[in-house]
């Protein structure tokens, strides 16, 4: 008789995510289910709103990566406004804003959420494994993180008026130029930011290699990788076409971004509000893939800035391509942060940035599809409007949704490695957290989680009887209850 093991990551996901493990008679884990319990209804309630509102409303799906939503919607409404090519100034402002956003989000994830695990160790005292302890015990490191994030947020503020949910993109361009005084001020600081990002790449590398066998085996799942890529398959975060490679690195697809609907389908399962995207020419069981920093460094053939490119080559020669270990996400993420810092540096000295030619217009049409690489992976916004400029159809596939099946596979893998007979162990509880956290599931876009989560594990028989439960209290003590 098969059983269910329910893992309830209550606090850090604010009740928005839970895990159930399905166990067979021989105590083998057959399936892991990460339940997303949150539902918004955006696709419906946006109907009837004027299309130019989209970048403002839709960014409020996520306060961690609002700029990605703002710009994905903006790219879609550019098409609706018939703006086939933005002015160089508008395009560069958007790219600058987007690099700043990926930089701040990656800094947040590493320093505020993941670093406490990596620095103190996955099995360290849970009551001290958090940002507060990091600040108290490693103030210099924590401050670097705070300052990298601040730099990104300030650039966003300078362009959009606010650090979170500002107003910048309009159909066919941008609403204001960047103040030259602000540009000079950022130029003075970008050198330090680059240096700190370089140091962080070295730190993550060291931490990964210190315990290499554990890191490599942990949650290891062979998966395809999907992202958009730029010309010559360079790493590209703002605009490009899809590239998909299989688990061995062989090319599966190159596909125009605006034809996402012939590349992807989404399966609905009864136990989660988050859908399961898969490649349309595969079955749901074989067509799933990974997105995000790990996938992007697998699909791209180079990074167009020198320091990050050097770091990428080192990362791939050390680990072997394509990389399939979820814990390598942290390393890949910091290489991307370094790339963002470098790219911000060169954009800040670009003369186009001071131009006030910010808007173009063309012949209006009724449909737009915006695809962008958000910090956590590929983000797709698709809209249709009517003759009165009202939205009639909206479809969003957010980054974390693409990783849905991959996260379940990694959880299953970790549980299979560490479920000890019929009883739940504190170790298992801890490791399931770490596996989910590596994907940096966002959190607001899909689950509201902010990284770590204390768990309540319950062992259930198929009739629903609770056999055993285990939880961790505020002091990090594990308690058993029947």
């Amino acid at each position, binding site marked *: 008789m098969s059983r269910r093991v*329910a893992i309830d990551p209550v*606090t*850090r996901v*604010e*009740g928005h995510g839970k895990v*159930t493990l399905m166990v067979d008679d021989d105590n083998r884990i057959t399936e892991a*289910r990460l*339940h997303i*319990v*949150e*539902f*918004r*209804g955006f*696709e*419906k*309630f946006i109907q009837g709103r004027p299309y130019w509102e989209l970048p403002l409303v839709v960014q*409020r*799906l*996520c*306060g*961690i990566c*609002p700029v990605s939503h703002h710009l994905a919607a903006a790219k879609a409404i550019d098409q609706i406004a018939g703006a086939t090519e933005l002015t160089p100034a508008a395009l560069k402002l958007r790219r600058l804003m987007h690099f700043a956003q990926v930089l701040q989000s990656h800094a947040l994830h590493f320093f*505020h959420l993941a670093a406490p695990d990596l620095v103190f160790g996955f099995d360290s005292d*849970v009551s001290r494994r*958090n940002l*507060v302890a990091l*600040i*108290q015990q490693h103030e210099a490191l924590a*401050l670097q993180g*705070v*300052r990298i*994030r601040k730099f990104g*947020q300030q650039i966003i503020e300078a362009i959009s008026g*606010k*650090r*979170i*949910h500002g107003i910048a993109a309009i159909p066919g361009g941008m609403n204001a130029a960047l103040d030259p005084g602000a540009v000079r001020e950022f130029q003075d600081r970008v050198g330090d930011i680059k240096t700190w990002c370089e140091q962080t790449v070295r730190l993550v590398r060291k931490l990964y290699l210190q315990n290499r066998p554990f890191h490599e085996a942990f949650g290891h799942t062979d998966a395809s990788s999907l992202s958009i890529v730029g010309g010559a398959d360079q790493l590209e975060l703002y605009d490009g076409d899809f590239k998909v490679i299989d688990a061995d690195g062989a090319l599966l697809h190159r596909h125009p971004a605006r034809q996402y*609907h012939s590349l992807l*389908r*989404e*399966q*609905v399962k*009864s*136990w*989660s*509000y988050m*859908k399961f995207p898969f490649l349309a020419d595969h079955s*749901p069981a074989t067509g799933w893939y990974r997105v995000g920093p790990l996938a992007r460094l697998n699909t791209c053939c180079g990074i167009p800035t020198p320091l990050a490119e050097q770091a990428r080559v080192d990362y791939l020669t050390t680990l072997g391509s394509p990389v399939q270990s979820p814990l390598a996400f942290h390393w890949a993420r910091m290489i991307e942060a370094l790339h963002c810092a470098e790219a911000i540096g060169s954009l800040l000295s670009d003369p186009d940035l001071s131009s006030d030619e910010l808007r173009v217009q063309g012949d209006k049409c009724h449909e737009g599809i915006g695809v962008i690489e958000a910090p956590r992976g590929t983000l797709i916004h*698709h809209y249709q409007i009517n003759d009165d400029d009202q939205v009639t159809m909206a*479809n969003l596939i957010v980054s974390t949704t693409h990783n849905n099946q991959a996260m379940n596979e990694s959880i299953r893998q970790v549980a299979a490695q560490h479920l000890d007979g019929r009883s739940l162990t504190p170790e298992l509880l801890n490791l399931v957290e770490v596996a989910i956290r590596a994907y940096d599931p966002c*959190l*607001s876009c899909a689950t*509201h*989680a*902010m990284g*770590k989560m*204390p768990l309540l594990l319950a062992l259930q028989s198929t009739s629903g009887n609770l056999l055993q439960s285990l*939880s*961790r209290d*505020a002091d990090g003590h594990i308690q058993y209850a029947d």
Partner: protein
Amino acid sequence: MTEPRVKVATCSLAGCFGCHMSFLDMDEAIVPLIQRIEFDRSPLTDIKQIGRCDIGLVEGGLCNTENREVLHQFRAHCNILVAVGACAINGGVPAMRNHYPLAECLAESYLNGVNVVNPQIPRDAELPPLLEQVIPIGQEVRVDYFLPGCPPPAAAFMEIVSAVLEQREPQLEYQQRRFD
């Protein structure tokens, strides 16, 4: 003499986490601040059950029954409960779904969505029931302070926590009273 410490709990219900991010936007000022406050249950810590707190900061309105439970726990454990941001105060963007019946919103995503396979409305013991309407937290419990903005600026968070530390009424400068 050690300075007084206040216990702070925070949570995100039907919000976007932007309010929490805005709290972190106080940047380096977080370093001296955390010498004076102690986080209880919050997405920044691993504490699962809320304990007795001086102040609870609640982001987001209520969209499902679990949100409601968490909110009541916060009210029961916090001396001062603050509705943070447009969503907690008015429902915000998630409350835009109130213009449509819940069943239509679900159908749009899971039955009529582009390229959807196995169309069905998710239903599982692990999924807490959704409320028919998204409601502001003040409709469910007594709220002591409302911090406006989407999100409120970092300085507004600093002010409310400082006021509790100094045992005085918070004062929001004009610039900190945002409605966007």
